[in-house]
């Protein structure tokens, strides 16, 4: 199964990258843009007997390594495909 993991800076944590990108977008004329956050996108293949088990494994992977709970939030999708 294929998992897609999204890691983003936690709300309230200063995201200087997001702020710099937002400034650049505004100077390009995209004035409607706001609250840009720059995070990380990870895809991985996972071998599991069921979707629920794959999800539980991916959650552990996120908690243990892919995201730092002090500063980041994560979400993921598992595609049984």
């Amino acid at each position, binding site marked *: 199964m294929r998992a897609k993991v999204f890691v983003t800076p936690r709300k309230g*944590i*200063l995201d*200087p990258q997001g702020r710099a990108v937002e400034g650049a977008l505004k100077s390009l004329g995209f004035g409607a843009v706001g609250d840009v956050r720059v995070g*990380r996108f990870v895809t991985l293949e996972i071998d599991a007997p069921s979707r629920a088990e794959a999800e539980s494994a991916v959650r552990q992977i996120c908690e243990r*390594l*892919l995201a730092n709970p*002090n*500063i980041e939030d994560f979400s993921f999708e598992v595609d049984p495909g």
Partner: protein
Amino acid sequence: MKWGVVSFPGSLDDRDALWALRDVLGQDAALLWHKDEALGGAECVVLPGGFSYGDYLRCGAIARFSPIMKSVASFAADGGLVLGICNGFQILCEAHLLPGALTRNRSLAFVCDFVNLRVENAATPFTRAAHRGEMLRLPIKHGEGCYVAPEDELRQLEERGQILLRYVDERGEAADAANPNGSMRSIAGVANDRFNVFGLMPHPEHAVEAMLGGVAGRKIFESIAGAAR
């Protein structure tokens, strides 16, 4: 005193730390390999600066799972002294041996400079050769040294005296302009609540010889050597 300096793949300052400890300060220091689990009888373990594992994922996130880090964690749990400098500080935060996290500098730029630091708590094994309010001038060189922690955690750090060093200006004030990376409350170095694990972004190992810009870094190593005696 016996010191162990850990080399991770991508560590840069392990040899400088070894030089400072052994050749300059006359300590009994040796390098430890990240894949080993033995700490070689070290009474203080130093996690040096650098870019362990290329800073992939997050600074320190992968190094914290190196075999030696299990030994470092149990050594710390038994009260052993652990010093993390720069990347070593990041690794200690990732390993939850220290609270908080280090994120991208506010400026997004890598900073390489001398900074003024104020000793906030001198009653610890890492700062006892200094006195409270003493100013130390140490070099920094990092891109991700912005210390962050939840507000209630910061309050606890203050109350318990776990903030050992702050970035200050020449008058000793923790002014925003003197904060090189945007760290919350101008924090440059924190200890755990048992005061046997300490992490700091500045580099004491690069400040032990007058010829290289100052000797303020000796205070940290001399504190530790005195504490273990």
